[in-house]
C-alpha cells in the first residue's frame, strides 16, 4: 500500500495524453464512450441495482477524493449490449439470468443470516458473505442450482474488476502508460522511462519531482 495520499503516481493523469501522439482517433472515441456511459440501470431493477452497487463497493472499493468509476453501470451495460465472454460453464445460466439470480440469492442470504438487506450491512458482514460466496458456502434456495462459487468467479469478479481496470482512473493508480498508438514506446529496457510514461513516487523519494514530471507526461 502506498503511504502518500496522492498515490503511487502522484499527479499522473493518463487523460492528459489524449491529444498527444500516444492516442489516435479510434482510441479517443473509445474512451469518450466509456467515460460517457449511462449511469442509470437499463437491465437491473432498482432493488437489484442497490444490491449490485453494494457488491461493487466491496469488490472494488474506491478512493473518496475522486468520482467513483460507475461499476454497476458497466455491469448493466455488458448485459444490455449482449457482450458475451465466448464461453459459459455448463452449470451457469446466461449472464443476465445469472446476475438476477445471484443478486436475489445474496439478498436472501443477507436477510437470513442477519435480518437485513445486503446493502445495509456493515462492511465486515458484506465481506463475510462475499467470502462465503467465493468459497462456495452459500446454498440457499434462491441459487436454484447455480453454484455460488462459479457465480463469484465468472460473473461477479470479472464483470466488476475488468470494468474497473479498463478505466483511465484505474490506469492512473497503477501507473499504466495507457494507449500507445501511433507513437508506441522507445525506451524498452529495465529502469528505462519514456517521457510519456508516468513517474513513480518511491517511498522516501522526492514526491514533488514525481508530481512535476507527471504533470508533464506527453
Amino acid at each position, binding site marked *: 500500500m502506498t503511504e502518500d495520499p496522492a498515490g503511487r503516481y502522484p499527479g499522473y493523469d493518463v487523460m492528459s495524453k489524449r491529444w498527444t501522439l500516444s492516442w489516435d482517433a*479510434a482510441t479517443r472515441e473509445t*474512451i469518450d464512450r466509456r467515460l460517457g456511459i449511462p449511469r442509470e440501470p437499463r437491465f437491473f431493477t432498482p432493488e437489484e441495482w442497490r444490491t449490485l452497487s453494494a457488491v461493487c463497493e466491496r469488490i472494488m472499493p474506491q478512493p473518496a477524493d475522486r468520482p467513483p468509476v460507475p461499476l454497476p453501470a458497466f455491469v448493466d451495460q455488458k448485459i444490455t449490449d449482449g457482450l458475451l465472454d465466448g464461453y459459459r460453464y455448463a452449470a451457469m445460466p446466461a449472464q443476465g439470468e445469472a446476475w438476477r439470480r445471484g443478486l436475489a440469492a445474496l439478498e436472501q442470504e443477507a436477510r437470513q443470516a442477519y435480518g437485513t438487506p445486503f446493502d445495509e450491512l456493515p462492511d465486515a458482514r458484506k465481506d463475510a458473505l462475499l467470502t462465503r460466496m467465493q468459497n462456495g458456502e452459500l446454498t440457499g434456495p434462491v441459487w436454484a442450482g447455480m453454484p455460488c462459487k462459479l457465480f463469484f468467479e465468472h460473473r461477479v469478479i470479472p464483470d466488476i474488476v475488468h470494468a474497473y481496470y479498463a478505466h483511465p482512473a484505474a490506469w492512473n*493508480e497503477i501507473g499504466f*502508460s495507457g494507449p500507445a498508438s501511433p507513437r508506441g514506446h522507445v525506451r524498452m529496457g529495465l529502469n*528505462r522511462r519514456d517521457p510519456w510514461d508516468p513517474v*513513480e513516487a518511491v517511498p522516501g523519494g522526492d514526491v514533488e519531482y514525481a508530481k512535476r514530471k507527471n504533470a508533464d507526461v506527453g
Partner: protein
Amino acid sequence: MSADPFAAPRAANGRAPDVFRPDGWVPMREYSRDEPVDFVVVGTGAGGGPLIARLAECGFSVIGFDAGPYFRPLEDFASDEREQEKLYWTDERIVDGDNPITMGGKNSGKAVGGSTVHFAMVSLRFRPEWFRSRSVLGYGADWPLDWREMWEYYGQAEKALSIAGPVSYPWGPKRPRYPYRSHEFNGAAELLARGAEALGYAWTATPLATVSAPHGASPPCVYRGFCRFGCSTNAKQSQLVTFIPRALRAGAEIRDLAMVGRIETGPNGRVTGVHYHREGGWHFQPARNVVVAGYAVETPRLLLASANGGFPDGLGNSSGLVGKNLMTQSNQAVFGVMQDEVRWNKGPQALAITENWNYEDRKDFSGGYCWMAQGPLPVEWATIQTTSRGLWGQALRDEMEKYNHQVGLKMVGEMLPDERNRVTLADDTDQFGLRVARVTYNWGDNDKALIQHALGQMQMSLEAVGATEIFRQENDTNHLAGTARMGDDPKTSVVNADCRSWDIPNLWVCDGSVFPTTGGVNPSLTITSIALRTADRIRSMAARGEL
C-alpha cells in the same frame, strides 16, 4: 471513419477494404452463386488465409468465407483491451469437463484474418521428432508428414510473414537466419535471459511476426504492446495484411460477415457447396471443393452440423474422430515483483524464449514446453490476480499498484491427445439457429506432471533474478488443436497428409484441427506451413486430374 464493419459486409460490389489505407478500397473479383467455384474455403486465418491466396495464385476460382468483419486496422483498432474484444469469437460455447477451457480471446478469433489478427505473433517451428512422436518419443500419435519437407515449408512461411528472429537459433537442426533482424528486448525479456543464464539454459529472441524494418506497406513495430488486441499500425504480419491482400490480387473473393452453417452433399456422396448466412438471409454457394479452416472448435462443429442421411454422424467422420482428441496447450505462469521498474507492457509480450525443455528428454513425463517473457495489460493482469490468488477489494488494489514492477514467465506446453477431450454439439442454439459447440476438457496425469515441472522451473528462473512475492498461475490454457486429425490410416484419422478427407474426396480440412499432437510451441507457423504444402499438393493433384 468508414461505416461500422459489423453493420454490413465491406467486401462487396467489386471491392474489398484496403487494409493499408483509412477508407481505402482495392478491387475484388466476385463469383456468382449460380455456378460452382473451384474452392470454397471456410475461415481466413492461419490455415485458410495462405490456402486461399496460393490456390488463387495457381489459377483456381476461390471464395474465402469468414464469419467476422473485415477490419482496416489503421482506422478500426483502438489502443484498448476491452474495445478490441471485438476481434474475438465471443459467441457462446458451453464448456465442461474437469478442466473447462476458457474460450474467447486466448484461442478464438472472429475477423477476416482469423486469430492472427490478435495472436501474439510467436512463430516457432516444431521440433522435428514431434512429427514422429509415437515412434520416436513414445507418446501421442505420428504425423503423416516428414519433418524435412516441413522444414522447407517453414522457411517459406517465415519468408512470407517476414519473421523477425535471431541469426542463429539455439535448438534443433540448422535453419536459415530469419528474414528480419530480431527485436530489441524489453525489461521482461532481459530478465528471462538473465534467469535462463543462471539455470544454464539457452535463450534467444523469440521469432515474431511483426516487422523490425519496413516491409511493403507495413512500418516497423513501434512497441505499443497491444499486440494481442490488434495491431493498429500494421507492423504485425497477420493474415489480414499478408496473404489476404495477396489472395485478392490473385482473383480470390472474400465474403466477410458470412457464417457458414452447413456443407451440402450430393447423391454421389461428394460435397456440392455451402449454406451460409449473410446480410440477413441464408444463401447457397456451389463449389467443386470445400475446405474447412475454422479451427479446432468451429471446424468439427461445422462437420458435425452437416450430418445428413448419407452421413448421419457428420461429414468425414467414418473414423468417429471428428471432434475428438481436442488439445489445448498449458499456459501456466509464474509471476514476481522486482525492485527494478520493468514496465512489462512495452513491446510484444513474448520477446524472449527458452525452448530448453522442448529439446531435453531427460524428464519423467512426455511432451515438451517452452516459456516466454510476459507483459499483460491491466485487465488481463487483474484477471490473473483474481483467478490465481482469489484477490478482491483492497488486497487486489494494493497488488495492482505494483504493475510496473511485475515480471513473469509463461509456458506454452504440450498436452497429450485424449479422446475424452472433444467438441460436440450442444442443444443450445446461436443467433443463426445453429447448435453451439460443447467443449469438454480434462487434464491427464501427464499434462499435470508437465505443468508442475514447468512451474517449478519458471519459479527457479524468477528467483535467480531476485524476484520476490512470487506466485503461480496454475490454471491457464491457450491454443487449440486436434478434432480432425491427419494420419496414414482412415480408421484412425479424419484427413490424410494432404488435409483431404478420407471419406469425401472433395472435402478438406486445413487448420490446427489436423494436428495429431500439439507440441510445446505456438501452433500458427505450423498451421500456415501445412496450408502452403496443401496448396502445392492440390496443384499437383489437379495437374494429374486427381481432384
